[in-house]
């Protein structure tokens, strides 16, 4: 039987054939929760999925043609399209040539691609005379459609291709280092503190953003605005600030910051969550959390983290057999760059392109609703891109409700369910993950070690150990509930959660592997973290006393 995927062909799960053909399909808990709506599936996910295949084919990855994906009840399931042994043999020599530049000079590959992306985003706006968020309202229907088509078919495609060429190279490099680590040191690298120390202390774009926001916070203190900040709710703070000279000064600084860096939302490719530039109050809670620290925490930690890294590097290299040392050292360098890229790309890839999609789709939603094609602007996210295209000009001629209503109803049902973690034979997961390490971006398998008698086991971690009070936060808009010094327990953390790293003392997440955002950020901030536990947010309750042991990658719930 084929499971419907909101009328999208080839995405339907075939419960007779698919598990057999692929062995196992794993739920993408990182990108797929809450369940995807049609615009996410049809644009963001579509180009991801294209990017993975494009990356695999361009790099000639010997073991995989990229991911395949199916939807069950709105949740995405992913697996690898594995190559035959003959194909692997054919692809191998080309793969060597293609991956070599990443090993020799990672930045030499990434820097021009990064510049290309930024130029593309800028030109898309400049060509249409767009600067401020509301400028898009001035576009004619035809111009808005052309922007949408550029976005959906050119900008997203380019971003997806660059994104995944980089991601695949990064994961193959880190994957090899992890494999060598297992062979040489007989330790599981994802839970070996030395491995994590080796990958730490690189300043990524998020860190730079965090520092800018801390500076904005300090500026507010300097302008004697801290009382207003403290006593005003986020959503009215901007208005309140506009009533004073100092407040207006601060607002204009903040606006400048957002014009450059405010192209981000809590969930990049779903388009149904607001962008900071659109809703400036979103950044305020984070600034409030940071503003009272006399120093930016990362800057304090950084010196220690870098020193630790350098010492660990020496120590680790000394344990590598001499013949392998130069190769190992080269691989470590490339892996460090890969880990750093893995953090950086969120800003340059997902955030920007996702925010642009939000910009255009939100405007279409507004116009469709105004013209009577749909009831509510938010309903636009239940349409497929080709439907938007067909209904865009002349606008208002097509009644889109029948398409929206049906899918919306299903989506609302799907919201209530807990997705099944996998379909097929889970014992094949390890093979699938090895054939394509990029699958680890979205899935994880905890390393269960019964002898530790822990309550939760992680798939990856950042070193350090802390006992304290847990706060379970299910979505990023609730992070202001956090009190300094608490342990954050969350489904996962994307770049939108960045600000919390300045105030928490420990972190436990359901999702995430060794290169995932929470682990990398926790390492940089020197916060003990256990990631990829799958069920932390279910097992732990706010107020529980828990022990996060990032050295061993396990969590204990005390006084249960």
């Amino acid at each position, binding site marked *: 039987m084929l499971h419907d995927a909101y009328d999208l062909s080839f995405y339907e799960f075939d419960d007779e054939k698919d598990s057999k053909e692929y062995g196992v399909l794993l739920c993408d808990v990182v990108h797929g929760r809450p369940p995807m709506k049609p615009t996410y599936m049809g644009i963001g996910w579509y180009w991801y999925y294209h990017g993975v295949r494009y990356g695999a084919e361009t790099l000639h990855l010997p073991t995989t043609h990229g991911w395949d994906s199916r939807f069950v009840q709105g949740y995405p399931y992913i697996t690898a399209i594995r190559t035959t042994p003959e194909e692997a043999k054919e692809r191998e020599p080309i793969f060597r040539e293609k991956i070599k530049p990443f090993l020799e000079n990672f930045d030499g590959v990434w820097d021009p691609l990064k510049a290309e992306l930024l130029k593309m985003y800028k030109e898309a706006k400049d060509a249409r005379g767009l600067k401020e968020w509301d400028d898009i309202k001035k576009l004619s229907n035809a111009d808005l459609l052309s922007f949408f088509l550029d976005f959906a078919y050119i900008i997203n495609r380019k971003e997806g291709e660059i994104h995944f060429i980089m991601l695949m190279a990064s994961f193959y490099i880190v994957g090899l280092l992890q494999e060598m680590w297992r062979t040489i040191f007989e330790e599981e690298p994802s839970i070996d503190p030395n491995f994590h120390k080796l990958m730490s202390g690189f300043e990524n774009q998020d860190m730079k953003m965090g520092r800018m926001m801390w500076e904005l916070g300090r500026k507010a203190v300097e302008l004697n605005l801290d009382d207003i900040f403290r006593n005003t709710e986020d959503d009215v703070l901007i208005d309140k600030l506009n009533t004073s000279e100092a407040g207006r000064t601060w607002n204009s600084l903040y606006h400048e910051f957002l014009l450059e860096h405010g192209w981000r939302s809590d969930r990049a490719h779903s388009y149904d969550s607001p962008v900071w530039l659109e809703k400036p109050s979103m950044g305020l809670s984070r600034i409030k959390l940071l503003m009272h620290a006399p120093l930016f925490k990362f800057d304090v930690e950084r010196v220690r983290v870098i020193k630790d890294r350098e010492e660990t590097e020496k120590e680790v290299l000394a344990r590598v057999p001499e013949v392998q040392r130069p190769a190992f050292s*080269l691989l470590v360098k490339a892996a460090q760059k890969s880990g750093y890229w893995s953090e950086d790309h969120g800003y340059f890839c997902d955030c920007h392109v996702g925010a642009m999609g939000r910009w255009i789709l939100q405007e279409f939603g507004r116009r469709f609703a105004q013209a009577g094609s749909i009831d509510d602007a938010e309903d636009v996210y239940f349409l497929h891109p080709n439907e938007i295209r067909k209904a865009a000009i002349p606008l208002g001629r097509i009644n889109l409700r029948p398409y929206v209503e049906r899918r919306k109803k299903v989506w609302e049902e799907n919201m209530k369910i807990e997705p099944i973690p996998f379909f097929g034979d889970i014992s094949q997961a390890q093979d699938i993950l090895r054939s394509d390490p990029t699958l680890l971006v979205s899935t994880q398998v905890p390393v269960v070690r019964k002898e530790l008698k822990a309550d939760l086991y992680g798939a990856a971690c950042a070193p350090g150990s802390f006992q304290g009070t847990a706060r379970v936060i299910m979505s990023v808009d609730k992070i202001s509930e956090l009190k300094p010094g608490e342990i954050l327990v969350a489904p996962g953390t994307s770049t939108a959660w960045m600000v919390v790293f300045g105030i928490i003392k420990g972190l436990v997440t359901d999702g995430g592997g060794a290169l995932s955002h929470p682990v990398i950020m926790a390492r940089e901030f020197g916060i003990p973290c256990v990631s990829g536990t799958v069920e932390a947010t279910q097992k732990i309750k706010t107020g529980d006393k828990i022990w996060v042991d990032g050295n061993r990658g396990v969590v204990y719930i005390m006084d249960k």
Partner: protein
Amino acid sequence: MSDKWIYWLEELGKEDNERVGRKCANLGEITKAGLPVPKGFCLSVGAYGMFMELTGAAEEIARLLETHKPAADDVNGIRTLSRAMRHAVESKPLPPEMADTVLSYYSQLCDQACTLDVAVSTRSAGAVSHPGQYETYLNVKGKDDLLDKVRKVWASTFNERSLAFCINKGLTLGNEPIGVAVLTMVQARSAGIAFSADPNTGDTSKIIIEANWGLGESVVSGELMPDRWVIDKETLEVRERTLGRKDKATVCLDCGIEDAEISPEKACSFCLSDEELKEIAKLANKLEAHFGLPQDIEWAVAEDKPFPNIVLLQTRAVVISKQAPVDQVLDLMVGLLAFK
């Protein structure tokens, strides 16, 4: 001749490298360690010098070098000089006392083997390895043949290869005295080499074995494609097996050896069983553990003995290729993907 210049293998150890050459020293070392090595003895580096001095060959060589100074690209000049130098060595009989001593060691080998003229191999052994540079003679039988081949091994330090090598490197010619290993021949059904690490990548998780039917010479010479196996060093399981193109094999004649064609049936089948591979891999591991470095090993399967009938003929540290680190990483990356 008070200084000792001839030794049984079991009298030697790796510390005797300078005295008898690396091959002999290492064979002695592993004999003492209880590993399977053919019976044999070694003529020291000093024996070579002694022969050269006592017979006047050294003087003759010196004279030749004064009159012949071929350039690196002077192939004919090098050839002429080489012939003259080798003749200077090969034409001199061993001084009687040296010949008697060598022959008394040989007759003890014959006694141990309960044979009149036991077949032996005579192999060169430099203090520094020069694989493939000097001569080895196999299936040497009888006193006269032995003495002749010992001189030929000595003379091979003046072969064209080594002269060309020295001229190219600007080294003094004829300045490389060598030892000679005399080992009882192994009647090899199959033979070859084993590396206790991948010489291309330094990957120490694998053992690589290459072999052909008959004596190991066809494998060592690199003239055909032997059967090849990659063995997991830890589990000793075979990870990969590749059938070679083995149209010929090196076999023993009555005296000496030849390359003979082998039957299509044999050419198409692997020349080692999994049990034999495991035995060889075990020995490779033992050798590596003993020397503390990955080893490059020559071995043979003795046809006339019951299993486990693997005999070691040589061991030395693996020379890991001077590959650029990035190529090593690429090899590892591809290797990692290949067996998944």
